[in-house]
Every structure is written in structure tokens, then in C-alpha cells.
């Protein structure tokens, strides 16, 4: 079910589906795409809560601002509002960045953290690019870097209704607003990742060339006790490209570590 709620003086749209342990899913820069299979697969095991980030879908930007800090506080407020306990926090791509920003502030309502090909930190030197410049690529070039099988990511925009196209355009604007400069990361975030005191799993698409598995290794080293698992035949969006493998790895990790 999709609903819109008022929270912290702003409007947030979210999808809720399934029963059981709460799982907060933070979508990638591309948007939530709730009709795609991963939410359904997750909801067979968990009570899935999946907001559209401010600026995406029908969620309003927070005061017109593009601050990821604001989004992190908003979702901590959401966890409190929904009285979540022992929840699983899952963030993919841009959602992984937001999840990490939340967790360096407070892990209180969560039991596990799963980051899926996250953006958000700087590892290399000033002349190295950790995160591919998605805004210097044509759509076809982008798909080649972001997907193991680029044909799976291709969308025939001309066939979509205008309301969907409007949401896509708003999402693209929001993504740029949050991540244009510094590009898709917070230079100060890595410094505080030691504050994450939850069992943490990093899931990475083997063929991701937006952020490579080597960047995932940098994340693993920065979070004490984190595991890095590689999903074959997947690029930047393993939850989209290999939804069954994604849910299996995730639930295996959550169930094993209580």
C-alpha cells in the first residue's frame, strides 16, 4: 500500500508491504520503482517500508534543499514515528549513502545494516574518481557501466504515461541536487563510519562499474566487522538485476546474525 504522511513539517510518500520484522528500504538514485520484483520478494519475509526520497515520487523536497543530512534526520524521525524496533536498514546506491548518514547519527532502532553498492564516501586521492561521473555519460554509456546486462536496464520512455515521466524527471533533478558537488559523496562521512555498531553486510554487483567492488572493499575496511559479498551477473543494481539472489543473501545474513 502506498500512502503519504506528514513528518517533520514535510510530506513523505511511502510504500508499506508485508508482515514481520520491519525492513526500511532506501531506494537508489534511479527511484523506487515499486512495481519491480524486489519489494514483493522482500515483503514475503519482512514488513517492508519503502519511502520515496524527498524530491522523488510524491515526496516533497525538504525546504527545497538538497542536503543528505536532512534526509537522514527525516528517516530517523520516520523510524521513531513508526516505533521501529530491531529493524533492518537496507540502502541501495544513493539510498546506501543516506543509510550510512543515518547510522553514524543513531543506530538505536535498527539491528542490521545492508548496503547495496552504496555511494557516499571518498576513498581515493583527489585525482582519482571513486564514483563514475554518471552526468558525463549518454544513457547508453551509463547503462553499460551500471548493468551486467544493459538491455535489462533499458526503458522505453516514450511508452510511459506522462505522470511516470514527470516523476522520473523530478527524481533526476533531485539526484543532481543532492549529489552534484562534491560528487555523490560527503567528504566527512568516512571519518565517522566507526560509529556504526551493527552487523553490516555490503552486497556488491560483480560487474558494477559505477562504484566497483574495490570501492566496496574500502567500505568494508571502514566499518568494523562488515562483510562484503559479491553477487555475480549483477551491476550497480543487484536488487534489480538479480532480485532472488539479493533477497537470499540479505535474509541469510539477517537470519544468521539474529
Amino acid at each position: 500500500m502506498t500512502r503519504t504522511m506528514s513528518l517533520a513539517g514535510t510530506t513523505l510518500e511511502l510504500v508499506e508491504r508485508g508482515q514481520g520484522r520491519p525492513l526500511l528500504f532506501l531506494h537508489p538514485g534511479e527511484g523506487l520503482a515499486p512495481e519491480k520484483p524486489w519489494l514483493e520478494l522482500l515483503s514475503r519475509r519482512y514488513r517492508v517500508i519503502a519511502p520515496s526520497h524527498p524530491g522523488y515520487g510524491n515526496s516533497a523536497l525538504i525546504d527545497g534543499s538538497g542536503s543528505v543530512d536532512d534526509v537522514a534526520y527525516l528517516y530517523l524521525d520516520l523510524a521513531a514515528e513508526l516505533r521501529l524496533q530491531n529493524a533492518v536498514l537496507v540502502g541501495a546506491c544513493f539510498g546506501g549513502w543516506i543509510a550510512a548518514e543515518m547510522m553514524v547519527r543513531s543506530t538505536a532502532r535498527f539491528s542490521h545494516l545492508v548496503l547495496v553498492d552504496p555511494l557516499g564516501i571518498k576513498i581515493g586521492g583527489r585525482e582519482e574518481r571513486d564514483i563514475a561521473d554518471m552526468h558525463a555519460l549518454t544513457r547508453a554509456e551509463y547503462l553499460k557501466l551500471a548493468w551486467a546486462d544493459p538491455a535489462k536496464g533499458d526503458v522505453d520512455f516514450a511508452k510511459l504515461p506522462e505522470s511516470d515521466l514527470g516523476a522520473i524527471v523530478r527524481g533526476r533533478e533531485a539526484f543532481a541536487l543532492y549529489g552534484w558537488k562534491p560528487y555523490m559523496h560527503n567528504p566527512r562521512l568516512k571519518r565517522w563510519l566507526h560509529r556504526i555498531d551493527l552487523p553490516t553486510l555490503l552486497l556488491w554487483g560483480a560487474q558494477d562499474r559505477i562504484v566497483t567492488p574495490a570501492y566496496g572493499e574500502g567500505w568494508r575496511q571502514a566499518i568494523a566487522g562488515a562483510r562484503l559479498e559479491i553477487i555475480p551477473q549483477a551491476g550497480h543494481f543487484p536488487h534489480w538485476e538479480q532480485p532472488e539472489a539479493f533477497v537470499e543473501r540479505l535474509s541469510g545474513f539477517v537470519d544468521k546474525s539474529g
Partner: protein
Amino acid sequence: MRVWYFSEMAYHPAWEEGLKRGSLRVVLPNRNYDPKIGHQLLNRYLDEFALCDEVGLDIMVNEHHSTSTCLTVSVPMALAIIARETKRSRLLSLGTPIANRPDPVRVAEEMAWLDVLSGGRLEMGLVKGAPYEIAPANSNPANLMRRYWEAHDLILKAMSTRDGPFNWEGEFFHYRNVNIWPRPYQQPTPPVWMTGLSTETGRMAAEHGHVVGTLLSLSAAGPMFAAYRKRAQELGWTAGPDRFAYAAVVGVGATREDGLRRANLAADYVRTSPVVAEAFTNPPGYNSLAANVAMLKAGGKRGGFVRDRHGNPVEQTTASIEQLIESGTCFAGTPDDVYDQIKALSDSVGGFGHLLMFGQGGFLDHQDTVTNITLFAKEVLPRLRELNLEPHKAVAAE
């Protein structure tokens, strides 16, 4: 009508390579620029600007970045030289891309300094900048216009405040002691210009009473000027032609053939200008939501903004000189031809008071450029001066 001569100070020797690579901008490595040839070209272009002062033309300078199409990297730097080499011409900065500048107070200082240096001859364009300027500046396109308006307000306040310092703590810019020296020569500020292609720009320019300029397409100019007039009327004043500027390529000759030849060479500006790597042509948030939805519906195809009289897009990169005359992109031929074309276009969009004359472009050489400037000034300019002279006026005062 005032006429402002203008050249982008192009580095056309690199165009062939740029066309081959599909981008004259952003990603064309500067190994394709030979500084020794560039030295000659920049000095030549400045000589051509200086000539305008002798023949009675006004002067406009623009800037672009990371491109072979325009080697003016800083309007104030170029205008500082031109101000010293000229005595009469008014000097139009069109302009400073203020949403791409980190320091608006510095912009205010430089404009005030230019105005003082030139004895009050400056006109000051505060522009949004083209989409492919986002990458070289690395400015956020998704809040570009919010940043534009904050910079605009801060620059005008810095230039018009006489009892500073004042405090500024906005969304984007923070200063605790704004108090620019020198202050401008013209009071309270030099005339302000904006540019664009949309009716929204026309409407916003009217809100401030600024001059609004558009370029190369009569199909953009008509609706934009109409939106300005309508908004001005709503606000209680009537916008005269002096609020409107139109930019086009101009080629004039003693014979029609010679005028067409000159315009055709200069029109390579129009043909090369849109050749830029696709990824940099539409950064998120630069164009409106509606325009982007339309683009996705059309399968990602972007129509150019140059359109013919029936509203059909003109393929800029390959357009003939005849097509470009038809679309209002070029005025070309004998002095009579050129005058008639300008007057007809001006009449069809309700009258503009400023012509921005691309009098040089690419392969139009120095001798041709000199002839183009002098012949235009001698045979066309005196007649244009008599056109569209009514000033804007407050309705309430009538």
C-alpha cells in the same frame, strides 16, 4: 535602434577536429589549441572591436568556457581592454553567468570598476548561461535559478548601496561586510540585461524592468517579448522597444552575393555552436520539467531552438544561408536587403530596440570583417538609428 557589434573570438582552427569528435566543447582537449595562433587571433579580434568605436557601433562581449567556439573566458577582462581602446561606444557585458560564479560580490566589484573606467559606458548582463557551461563551472544545475536570483539580488544591492557595509546570509552566499569600492559611475547601477529563450524569462525580466535579449530565432523572440509586454502592462507600465534585444548573424556586401558570402562564413558560428557531447546538453534541472517530459516522450531527441516561420525546427549544423535568413538567424545581402530583413523581423515581434550583431564568426577573415563592420555602419546603421525609438513609460504617468 542601437546596434552592438559582437564576436565570440572563436578558435576556428580546431573546429574540424571538434566536428570529427562530435564536440567542440567541454571534452575537446586543449592540445588542439595553438597558443601562437591564438595570440594573433585574440589581438586581431580586439582590433575589430576597437574599429567599432570609430564607425559608431556599440560593443558587446560574451564569455564561454572550455570551448573552441569562444575564447573570451572573462567578459570583464576583455571589456577592460576595449574600454581603454574606445571612447564613445557603449559596452555591453552579456554577460556574466552569475549562477556559475562562486563570488557575486567580486562580480559587482568588477562591473563597478569597468563602469568607472569607461566613464559610465557599461551595460551589465546577468545571465543564466548555456547548459554546457554547467560542466566547466561544475555548478549544480538543479538549483541554478535559485542561485541565479540570489546572486542577482546581491550584486544589485552591492552596486547600489552607498552606506555599507551590509550583511548577507542567504541560501548560497554569505558575507558579513559587503561594501564595494569603487561604486559604479552610473546611478544607481548600470542598465541590467538578461537573456533567454522562454516566455518565463520574458516575464521575469519584466518584473525587474531589465532589458531582455534572445538570439537567432524569430520563433523564440515573438512569444518572449510578448510575455514581457504583458507582464509589464500588468505591473502598470508599457515596455518600449528599448527593453528588447535580438541577436543575429549579419553579413553585408556591396553586392548581394558578397553579403551572402560573408554571412555564410560567419554563420559557421550557428552551425558549430550546438556540436557538443550529448551528456552535457541537458543537465538535470536546467530545462523545465515539461520540456524534459516532452523530450523523453520524443525518445530523448532534443529539437534545436532555431525554427522556421512555420515553427518547424531547422537543423542548425547543416542549415544553408537561405534557411538561416528564413528563420531570422541571419540578416544578409546588400545594405538595403539587410535593413529590410531587420525591419521586417523587428516589426513581426513587436519592435526591438537593440540589435546584437554577430559581425564576425569563424572563418570570416580580418579584411572581410573590417568591410562588414564599416559597410554596415555606413549604409545600414544610420537608417536603423531612426527605428523603434519610443522609450518605455509608466502608464500611471500618462
